[in-house]
């Protein structure tokens, strides 16, 4: 519902961007942010946060390039995603075992991973010099405007929505975020749910990173900085409650599209990019407030 209000407002404001070319390029950026946002929403619904997604995005992308340059892109793809899964697992374990809020735990891993990346690369970019298999599968233009990543984005929206809404596991996710205590009382292994969702979130962030990197064919260490806030904003715009227990995958994806349109709109209007950042902050607060109001009265 929060989505509808904002969507209508912004599509009115940004109707001038409605050319096919521009919409497709928005979709390209949106697919990468959106895949990350899906993971974030999946985790937020289970009642946890992950600020480290932006660093996982960059780290996995880097790892992919380095591995692909040595072997082949397919093996590199799977190995890099496995590392992302391990990072998600560690995020989950820290949150659960140390009993600290995931907000803090993942702020730690975000800075840690980014620091490692900067340290290892010395701030230099790395070029992709490997086969064309993964770039073809992920990002190379299919038609004049559209890329495979657009399709993967849509496929992931569908799969993750089905998991969330139509499987027992999805029911446990909602319950874990809605009331961890109740979920546990009713027999749900809430720690397991959280760890799995942390892993899914990290893998999707890593996938988004690899997609972006096959598009640019180069990575630098500042890659994806602050993207975690965009992803959280997307999820929240899409109706996901900050407090967990409620939200939707489709909403998060639509939220990411709004963020993409906003960024594109501001760039087209010639505004410096820090205005976009200011907007992200503002939107986050407004959307979260609207969500809370809607839930409390409805």
């Amino acid at each position, binding site marked *: 519902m929060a989505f509808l209000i904002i969507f209508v407002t912004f599509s009115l404001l940004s109707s001038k961007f409605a050319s096919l070319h521009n919409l497709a390029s928005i979709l390209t950026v949106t697919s990468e942010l959106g895949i990350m946002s899906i993971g974030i929403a999946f985790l937020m619904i289970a009642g946890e946060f992950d600020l480290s997604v932006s660093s996982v995005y960059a780290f996995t992308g880097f790892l992919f390039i380095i591995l692909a340059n040595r072997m082949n892109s397919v093996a590199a793809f799977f190995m890099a995603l496995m590392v992302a899964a391990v990072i998600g697992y560690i995020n989950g374990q820290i949150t659960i075992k140390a009993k600290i809020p995931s907000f803090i735990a993942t702020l730690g891993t975000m800075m840690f991973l980014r620091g490692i990346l900067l340290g290892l690369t010395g701030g230099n970019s790395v070029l992709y010099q490997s086969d064309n298999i993964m770039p073809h599968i992920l990002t190379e233009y299919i038609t004049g405007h559209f890329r495979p990543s657009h399709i993967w984005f849509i496929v992931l929206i569908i799969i993750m929505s089905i998991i969330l809404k139509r499987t027992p596991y999805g*029911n*446990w996710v*909602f319950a874990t975020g809605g009331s961890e205590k*109740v*979920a546990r009382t*009713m027999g749900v292994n809430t720690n397991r749910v959280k760890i799995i969702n942390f892993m899914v979130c990290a893998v999707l962030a890593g996938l988004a990173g690899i997609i972006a990197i096959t598009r640019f064919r180069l990575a630098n260490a500042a890659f994806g900085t602050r993207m975690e806030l965009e992803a959280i904003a997307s999820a929240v715009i899409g109706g996901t409650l900050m407090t967990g*227990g*409620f939200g939707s995958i489709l909403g998060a994806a639509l939220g990411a599209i709004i963020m993409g349109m906003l960024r594109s709109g501001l760039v087209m209007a010639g505004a410096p990019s820090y205005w976009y950042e200011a907007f992200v902050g503002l939107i986050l607060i407004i959307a979260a407030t609207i969500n809370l109001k809607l839930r409390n009265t409805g």
Partner: protein
Amino acid sequence: MKEEYLVEMKNINKNFGAVKALKGVDFIVKKREVVGLLGDNGAGKSTLIKILCGVLKADSGEIFFNNKELSISSPYQAREKGIETVHQELSLVNTMTIARNMFLGKEPIRKVGFFSFLDKETMNREARKVIGDVGIKVRSPDEYVSILSGGERQAIAIGRAMYFDAKLLILDEPLRALSVKEQKNVLDHVNQVRDQGISVIFISHNVYHAYSVTDRFVLLNKGEKQGEILKEDSTPEEIAEFVSSGEKLSKIV
């Protein structure tokens, strides 16, 4: 003699930091019996049953279920063994629908190849049935629990516990926050459940609430068992008197 026992808890101890919530409590539930667990607020009633249904772990003591040692480490395992509980705090997730709450942790599934999907049709149909059985008026099982009144939530939680084929039904303060009519509804359900041969633990701090359905009372006071009374031996006034006096009773059963 022992064959009659469904639950046998022996010498149960539980501390919360410095608070000794349970001090060597013995507790028995026979088959087809409604046990009223009575005691003032803070007596340790909820703590005792939370140990039985896997929410808490006793510091020491033994538990037998159907004459076999009950070693459970989670509520999931307790539910698998046929122990269904309506907790004082009801165990409903407000941000979820009635149907989703009904089947939380025991979701019916529909297999498609390797994948298990929620059987939504069954969930909605059965939830609708339960809503009808417990006599509350909501439009649909897709309503969120957050819009229900205290009494309606109570009814849903009890309906859920009775829906799954339990061997033991535990009701922790089930009449709290209910209107007289709703109370009568719950008591009728307890009678139905007993007629099906299911044992019930009915927890209350008010003997009058429990009196009509209970076969035997167990009194708990400040973490210790104060005694047991068969219903036919006492009037509710006498039992209330014992509860408030806190005196130890000679064991009657």
